[in-house]
């Protein structure tokens, strides 16, 4: 395969974005392209492990790192961009660990060697980058402003970062590298939303957990946490909640009918991806941004607000 050009970036879609979370995938690509960078999917990607592999030692690091190898090997890119916060976390965790721990790097490389897929050793010189951080640092807020043709004036948005985009800083280095977002009080989504003309609301649950990890075994916990987040955002006057993680969408959006059934109308609020709102502001249609994919019906809310 051809190596990437200057205006391209290696992109890891992950399992959710290629299937259920098409909306996030498509809008991320649209927005990136508009901002001057084409996201090129790595071929043959594999699952990051979504946190379910953690107790399996170095195998949990092999999973994401195989994708880093693919990016380098097939697309000639040290870095890899991804939109899912869970994948992002798994990648950063693995990279941080093998950088810090030579033994673990050797173990991972032994697995690579046995698998025999790549003729070279893995060297942890590349970074996994979350789409939000990537666009923020590589293109900047001004680029967002420049591309905004239909500002979302009057739309009140509750930015929801969730857990793993900024936590823990021992993996994300969000607190050590000044160009990274803050772990406890992230700002990048706020800045982007304000750049596209929307108004952000403060509601206190920006970095709370959606409980998505145990959604299957323990939806009770997830429903309770999501209900808290949604109702707080609603109380703060938000029209929609903006996400940057498909797992959060699974909890807040897909399950919203069940949450409403259990906790009532206070827990009902349209859920969208940040990139969907950006795509809309950049002049793409609601269809192109796949707003219709969301269960919580943001189309109605957008229409009411005149978008």
């Amino acid at each position, binding site marked *: 395969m051809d190596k990437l050009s200057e205006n391209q970036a290696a992109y890891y879609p992950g399992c959710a974005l290629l299937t259920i979370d098409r909306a996030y995938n498509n809008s991320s690509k649209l927005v990136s392209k508009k901002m001057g960078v084409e996201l090129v999917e790595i071929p043959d*990607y*594999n699952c990051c492990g979504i946190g379910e592999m*953690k107790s399996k030692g170095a195998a949990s690091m092999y999973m994401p790192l195989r994708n880093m190898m693919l990016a380098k090997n097939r697309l000639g890119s040290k870095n890899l961009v991804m939109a899912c916060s869970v994948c992002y976390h798994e990648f950063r965790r693995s990279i941080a660990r093998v950088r810090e721990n030579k033994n673990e790097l050797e173990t991972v490389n032994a697995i690579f060697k046995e698998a025999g897929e790549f003729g070279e050793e893995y060297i942890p010189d590349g970074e996994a980058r979350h789409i939000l951080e990537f666009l923020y640092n590589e293109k900047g807020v001004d680029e967002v402003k420049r591309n905004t043709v239909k500002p979302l004036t009057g739309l009140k948005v509750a930015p929801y970062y969730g857990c793993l985009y900024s936590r823990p800083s021992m993996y994300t280095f969000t607190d050590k590298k000044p160009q990274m977002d803050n772990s406890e009080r992230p700002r990048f989504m706020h800045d982007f939303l304000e750049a596209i003309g929307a108004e952000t609301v403060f509601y206190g649950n920006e970095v709370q957990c959606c409980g998505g990890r145990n959604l299957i075994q323990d939806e009770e916990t997830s429903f309770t946490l999501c209900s808290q987040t949604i109702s707080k955002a609603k109380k703060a006057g938000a029209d929609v909640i903006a996400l940057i993680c498909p797992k959060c969408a699974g909890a807040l959006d897909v399950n919203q009918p069940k949450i409403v059934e259990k906790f009532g109308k206070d827990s009902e609020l349209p859920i969208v991806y940040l990139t969907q709102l950006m795509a809309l502001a950049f002049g793409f249609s609601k269809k192109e941004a796949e707003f219709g994919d969301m269960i919580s019906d943001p189309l109605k809310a957008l229409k009411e607000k005149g978008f």
Partner: protein
Amino acid sequence: MALKKQEQRPVAEKGEHIIARHLIEDDSIKEEKNLVIDGVDVSGRWNTFILSRVDSEFDRSFFREVKDTVVGSRINRCWQCGMCTASCTVTPLYRRFNPRAFIYMMQLGNLKELKKYIDVAWRCVGCYKCSQRCPKQVNPAEMMEALGLVIKKYFPEEVQSKLKVDEDVKKIYDDMILGHGRLDLAKLHTSAMQKTGRTKELLGKIERDAIFKMAKDGRAFSILRLGKPHNWNSSKEAMGNYLKNLNTIENSEA
């Protein structure tokens, strides 16, 4: 009160006659319902025996086992400040879920105490607030994974009886992630519902609406096209061998 209960029922509950019975855990009371020694009937309360509640050793082999794992490697750092439990998303919902205490029990090898919490031990949602805030960077979030490993090793029966759902779901994940290299979310959802005996819900209105919606907008078909990475079998085998040959509790066959 206790007397009245006894009058109603000829066979007393285990340890029922003990004053302040509520202070003693079930496991600490030994009492044979029917026991005859040297021809003397000492059934029930006549043979009641209360085990000592005093801990009489620190078992560090446990600590070493945890320290040898990837997720538990920083167990020696914890000084029990409670920042993890204070930060925890789950603790306010389930008071008995206390990462700080679990780490301490693992440090001291206090299996007796740990056993009482098997039913809540898996509740960590992996939000990493604890790891973000832990002043010693113990990484409590991952320490909860190590907790899962030790529970699995030392309490297989309890895992079977109390954590069956969790284990079943883990198995589904393993089969998909390791087996196929990719995660089929729809299949994950349906097989989990099946395993947990909630197949009926899949036919409920909410689930049906979602499935219909995805079939209509085409996403259901993209799931069918998810596929498998090329050469995945070589990765699968290499990881399988690695996991089999580990001499830690992470070993898949342990």
